[in-house]
């Protein structure tokens, strides 16, 4: 849409033609001309709205009826009289053509008055919405069971219910030239790091995308300066998680139309944290450690298997090597190819099972698991141990509570498999060396990704691997140590 800074004209007919032209005579564009039977003065006005998104009952009951019942109107301030007459809470006076269009597409009703170069915009938007429901992706056993929906305003109100604090600031802006998506930043004014806030604000303002359909578009656009498979922004659909992070001084980004709220800055270790950690007695719980352990093992299990069976057979216990060797007797493919084929098959099974109609899932699971897995081994195509190793890897991988983070290591695992098959354990060490360096290098909007582990921040470690009692962690806010090095580099 081209920027149209022109003011609206004084003629209603001109304005209506302009609007109709702008909307290409859209069938849901409703134009209703009203001439109220006034005893004093005269008024000619047109009511314009988009029938599909505006609430017709409101228009009829609270705009049309009061206007038609008007008796008098002052000739000097007709707009003031009308705004006093119509019974809608949110009313604005608009004078620019592009603003009129913008209001219309947001579901507002425009009242155009003959002879005036202003018009009235009344909020009558009625967006179709689903009711609040359980969070779909991040379920939990204990704690709040409410999830975000697609309406940004509802989501904001959900968070506001948790954080009843005047310092909670919402900044709204519209981005995307064609979709005009409203994006809101939410933060606690007294706790937020102004530098990070400016950084995020600038990055969102400079997004040059025509269309924004989901919050993931924003995530990709504002993180594009660092190439990494790891997510630098936490995505959540839980209002309690969002509130918790906002209270730690982080910034939440709400995108209208998306149930996923973005939280920045995000740290590596926070992807292992689940909201339940705070609701359960956690000091004696191992769940976080189990998640971290299984994440690491799910990277290394397959490469280690390859390295041991190909290069370092002396490190396998004798009893095990007999059974491994006996399984390999009549297997045609080399172990590396076998593993890679099964990893790919597993990815395909995952991919297809997500989008499968529910009716076929049973048949699919029989084919996918029993026929493919068991029979392949029985037929002597693959080694049973390979199946065990590959499936164990994927099971371990699912232990991570946040899916995008679990998916981040898909590619890394393949790279490690190649390294292990060419160089053995030496290759795995080489890969680890680069992986750790890469993680150390990353930063999420100025906060080092591996903080508080590297650089070490002892106070924050209380809520890292295990959660210490709440009274020790809640009242002392976390300081994700900002990367001085990177800041210095930027200043220079």
């Amino acid at each position, binding site marked *: 849409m081209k920027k149209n800074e022109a003011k609206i004209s004084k003629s209603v007919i001109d304005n209506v033609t302009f609007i109709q032209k702008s909307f290409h005579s859209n069938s849901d564009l409703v134009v209703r001309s009203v001439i109220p039977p006034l005893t004093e003065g005269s008024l000619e006005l047109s009511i314009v709205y988009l029938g599909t998104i505006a609430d017709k009952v409101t228009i009829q009951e609270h705009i049309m009826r009061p206007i038609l019942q008007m008796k008098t109107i002052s000739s000097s301030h007709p707009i003031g009289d009308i705004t006093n007459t119509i019974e809608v809470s949110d009313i604005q006076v608009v004078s620019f053509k592009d603003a009129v269009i913008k209001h219309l597409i947001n579901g507002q009703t425009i009242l155009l008055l003959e002879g005036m170069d202003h018009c009235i915009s009344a909020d009558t938007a009625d967006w179709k919405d689903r009711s609040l429901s359980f969070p779909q992706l991040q379920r939990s056993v204990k704690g709040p069971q409410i999830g975000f929906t697609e309406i940004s305003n509802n989501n904001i109100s959900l968070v506001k219910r948790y954080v009843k604090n005047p310092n909670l600031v919402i900044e709204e802006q519209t981005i995307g030239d064609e979709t005009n998506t409203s994006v809101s930043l939410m933060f606690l004014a007294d706790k937020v790091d102004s530098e990070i806030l400016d950084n995020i604000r600038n990055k969102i303002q400079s997004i040059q995308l025509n269309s924004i359909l989901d919050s993931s578009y924003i995530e990709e656009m504002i993180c594009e300066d660092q190439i990494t498979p790891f997510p630098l922004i936490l995505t959540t659909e839980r209002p309690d998680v969002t509130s918790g992070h906002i209270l730690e001084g982080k910034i939440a980004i709400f995108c209208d139309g998306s149930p996923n709220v973005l939280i920045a800055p995000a740290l590596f270790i926070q992807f292992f944290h689940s909201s339940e950690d705070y609701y359960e007695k956690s000091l004696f719980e191992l769940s976080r450690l189990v998640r971290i352990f299984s994440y690491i093992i799910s990277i290394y299990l397959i490469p280690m298997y390859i390295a041991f069976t190909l*290069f370092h*057979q002396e490190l396998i216990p004798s009893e095990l090597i007999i059974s491994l060797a*006996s399984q*390999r*007797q009549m297997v045609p493919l080399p172990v590396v190819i076998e593993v890679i084929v099964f990893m790919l098959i597993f990815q395909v099974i995952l991919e297809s099972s997500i989008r499968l109609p529910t009716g076929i899932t049973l048949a699919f699971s029989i084919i996918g698991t029993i026929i493919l897995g068991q029979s392949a081994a029985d037929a002597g195509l693959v080694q049973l141990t390979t199946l065990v190793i590959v499936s164990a890897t994927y099971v371990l991988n699912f232990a991570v509570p946040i899916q995008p983070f679990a998916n981040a290591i898909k590619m890394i695992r393949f790279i490690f498999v190649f390294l292990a098959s060419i160089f053995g354990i030496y290759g795995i060490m*080489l890969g680890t060396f680069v992986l750790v360096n890469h993680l150390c290098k990353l930063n999420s909007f100025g906060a080092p990704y591996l903080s508080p582990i590297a650089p070490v921040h002892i106070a924050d470690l209380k809520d890292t691997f295990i959660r210490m009692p709440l009274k020790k962690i809640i009242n002392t806010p976390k300081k994700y140590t900002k990367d001085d090095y990177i800041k210095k580099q930027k200043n220079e």
Partner: protein
Amino acid sequence: MKYLYMLFIILSISSIFFSQGDKHELNKTSFSFAIGIDYAKGGYEVSLQLINPGAISGEIILNNSPYIVYKATGKTIDSALEKISMNTSRSLDLQQEQIVLLGEELLRKGKIKDIIEYILHSTDIPSNSIIVTTKGNSARELLEIFSPIEGISSLEISNTLNKLGKKVSKTANDIKVDLIDDGKDIVVPYIELKGDAKKGGEKKNLETTEPTHFAFVGLALFKEEKLKSFMNYKDSLYLNLLYGKSSGFIIESSCPESEEKFAYKVTNSLAKKKEYQKEEDKYIFHYDLYLKGDISQYNCHLNLENPETSNQIEKQVKKSINNKTHKVLEHTKEHEMDPLGLGQIISQQDPKTWNKIKGDYPALLKNAEIKVNSHITIQNVGNYKSRGD
């Protein structure tokens, strides 16, 4: 940060030049769990027990034997191994070696040092594999036996020795240490074949209830580098008792009041404080033994509920320990060897005397005497405290 990625690329490329050449799929490798070395004229006869994994577990595709023994002679062990590898379709993997079985004849000729040096030097044979010797048969004959319980004879031998306690099995490292140490002679466990060697090499051996099998018989005692004598299993256990830890054996003693016998089952033992004392021309060694155990079979008539009885029983156990250790010492005196490491005790506690007597040392052991001070704890006397008569 770019230099890191450069470093990664450089390391990857450079590793191609020194990457391991021994990359083998598991079905291209032949594993060997036991190697036997015998004496051959002018060299060694090496027999290698190669595992046939297909026949041991999983699906049996070909009805072949679980393992095959290849043998070859050579002037060095390596040349013999090379000959064996010419016979097989797969590459040999000696890194899983559990057992190094040395023929009796080879050790009688004093070749143990050569073998130990070879194992420690070799990059293939792990230095923690157990060294065992044979009595009567050659190593090759023993490796050809089908093992009735574990399925693989090498695992059966290593499990048998490990069961008896850590001090019984000896690795190349342990023997090397004993070789270097002054005043201690080598001790190597030996096994014997029970039954007919020829029948043991047939698959029928796995199907009978009275198979030809191995047995741990005791310790082979060396004088310097030559095998001198074999000590039976019971005496060897007492030898082990004096070395340090051993467990799970029975001490038989006669009852305090009669000639009937009772059995004291040792569950835990510890030898502490080996002290040396010189009296005139006698060398006296004091051992403190701490034993824990149960009364097992009890043929005596005294009531065990009476604390006095257990004191008497403890005395009897002490007595039989003293008798047995004395017998062990007599045996070593006879062959002029020192498996107990008595010389070592002297050299540690009285280096001056040791330097004087070092030259004609093992002969001087004639004057040695062992005094064992045992501390017996009876943990469990059994359900019936007295025999009721």
